[in-house]
């Protein structure tokens, strides 16, 4: 009996070291942040010295118009960049999924933007948007058009464009990989049945790519919610709060306002938001799989 118990416990015994490391490396910092969010915590104090304030930080944030504006900006930014990047990335992948000469060089060139350090990207775009010496306004002026106040009147649009430039290649590369691993038999069958190029894309390629696209979109969305350096360098969140996304507000709350507890609470709100999004995406994926399996069963039953 004892030997059976021991045998049953053996796998857990082997799992234990990994579990301990995970608890220490992953859950401890997370727990620290959650614990900190219930306290009035100044950077000069250790967490233990700070005063317990319950849910005060969360309630304060809920009533803080600046925080709400920041959430709005974050949602606008994330949804815009991910939608456009998905559209462009997948579109480019569909266009370039063929045997072109020099394709490997083209692919390397495409992914260059995402290899550049975010601070550099921010600086480069900031100077390209510069009202007088920036390349955009100089070009506009050279063709006789009015110059545009990029980082003043159109700040959010300007940072969205910079992000799209940097991250569309990520979607492109993953979509291309997904496309190239699609079963050729399905595409050939469609072609034989007389499907047009568009029909192949809409009814065969996109549905088959969907699991990869969902994960890719999710990864980008999570990343877009946390982007900091590019916006910090380009606009510092301005003008007003028009580009102050949550990650930037968290950073300012911790360093400028020296309110670590409030910054931790804000991080937790962001964490909850991202977890909800992730769960929604996964549920959607499951539902799609379930529908596909059901359709398969019906077809098999019909046969």
């Amino acid at each position: 009996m004892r030997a059976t118990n021991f045998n049953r416990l053996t796998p857990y015994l082997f799992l234990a070291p990994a579990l301990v490391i995970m608890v220490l490396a992953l859950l401890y910092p997370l727990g620290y942040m959650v614990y900190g969010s219930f306290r009035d915590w100044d950077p000069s104090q250790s967490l233990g010295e700070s005063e317990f304030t319950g849910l005060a930080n969360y309630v304060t944030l809920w009533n803080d118009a600046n925080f709400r504006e920041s959430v709005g900006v974050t949602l606008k930014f994330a949804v815009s960049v991910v939608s456009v990047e998905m559209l462009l990335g997948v579109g480019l992948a569909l266009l370039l999924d063929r045997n072109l000469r020099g394709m490997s060089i083209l692919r390397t060139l495409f992914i260059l933007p995402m290899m550049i350090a975010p601070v550099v990207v921010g600086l480069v775009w900031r100077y390209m948007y510069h009202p007088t010496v920036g390349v955009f306004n100089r070009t506009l002026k050279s063709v006789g058009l009015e110059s545009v106040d990029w980082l003043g009147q159109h700040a959010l649009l300007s940072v969205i464009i910079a992000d799209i430039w940097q991250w569309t290649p990520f979607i492109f590369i993953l979509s291309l990989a997904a496309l190239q691993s699609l079963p050729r038999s399905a595409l050939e069958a469609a072609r034989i049945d007389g499907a047009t190029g568009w029909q192949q894309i809409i009814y065969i390629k996109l549905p088959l790519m969907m699991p990869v696209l969902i994960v890719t979109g999710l990864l980008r969305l999570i990343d877009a919610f946390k982007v900091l350096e590019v916006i910090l360098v380009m606009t510092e969140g301005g003008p007003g709060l028009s580009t102050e996304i949550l990650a930037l507000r968290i950073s300012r709350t911790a360093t400028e306002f020296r309110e670590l507890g409030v910054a931790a609470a804000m991080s937790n709100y962001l964490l909850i938001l991202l977890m909800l999004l992730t769960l929604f995406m996964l549920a959607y994926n499951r539902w799609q799989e379930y529908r596909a399996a059901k359709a398969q069963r019906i077809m098999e039953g019909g046969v």
Partner: protein
Amino acid sequence: MLSITKTLRTAAAASVLIAGHAMAGPYDDYAGQTLVVNFPAHPHYDAVRKILPEFTKETGIEVEVDQLPYLKMRERQTLELGQDEGDYDLIAYVVFSKADYVYADQLENLARYFMNPKLADPSYDADDLIDGYVYNIGFAGGNKGYLQGKTGSLFGIPYGSETSVLGYRKDIFEKHGLEVPETYEQMLDIACKIPELEPGMGGLSSRAASGHHASHAFLLHLAPMGGRVFDDNWNPTVNNEAGFKAATALKTIVDCGPEGAASFGFGEALGSFLAGDTAMFLDTTVVAGQIDDPKKSKVVGKVGWAMHPMDVRRGSQTGGFGIGIPKNAENKEAAFLLMQWLTSKAGDKLVAMAGGNPSRFSTHNDAEVNAKFPHMATFGEALKHADPDWRPIIPVWGKINADLGTTLSKVLTEDLDIQEALDGVAARAQVVMEEAGYYTWK
């Protein structure tokens, strides 16, 4: 004859040696120690690095410098100062850190060092240090808690401090027969005339970007216009007549400024003046070196300097850095000796000659320094009016400052009504002050 000379020489050498032992130099006990100091990446501290070998040569104390971008420096210090034993013996701190560090009891009170006859140099002449800088950067615990006063004491010494002056294009002013502005009215008038007189050129370069930049620019005008952020009872007064006038001045400057001025940070504002796109620049004295550097500036030799214009009073900014000894430093006494050496008359002149910002009146009046940097005399004059209270240095200032700056940015870019904007800032500041306990005694 030869042997007499030899004997005399030997006797002289021996007497020097004996005297040396009997009267040890102030640095002898510390020679061989290595100090670790934390300085910002800033033109003044670049100059300091050039003179540190002189200190080591004179004292035998080695200095290791950890130089960081100034925002990064503050983050690192926050971590370091909270430890039981810190890595830094001497730190440079930006002025708004004073409130945080002193309040958290992380900086040494300098009284016990200046009282120690073995450490304090009698020829130090503290009265020669610029008053506004000392009160702004060094003092805490006095009036309003962060200024000089009967209950205050010294926690740091200004080093790399700055005030504001007006830089103007001599060639443009001469060409159009313009007088150098003495008052705000004259300055604003010229700022808006320039774009008409010199198409494509802005009147005055100013910081205006959301956050700290816009707030800084507003406060720069608030003090000369007779305003303060708070009254003596900590009630916000940014929305009074002076505040309205200061915000209106800022808006006028931005509207008559170079293209895209509303999104200018300090770098862009300075860059625009250096590129010759604006006729005036009202900001910190620290830029003088760059304006005279042909690698960075297209306006070398064309810039004149004048006092920060006055309105109802004179009041130029005080800012920059000070140096202090952390409570958890390992070599505090040697750190004090370095601090004293750097800010002494000789040290201050050395750093000024190396391109740094002097902290003493005597250095600003020094003939040799003036021969090398002719603007120094004007800067020295401006310093007499440096206002240590042009912005409050209280722990909650970061939050109020950010709100003020983002709201003013909306005034500049989204045409938010000035009075409405300032009323909003005042109301929100009142809540922050209430929460921080400033109305406990009401």
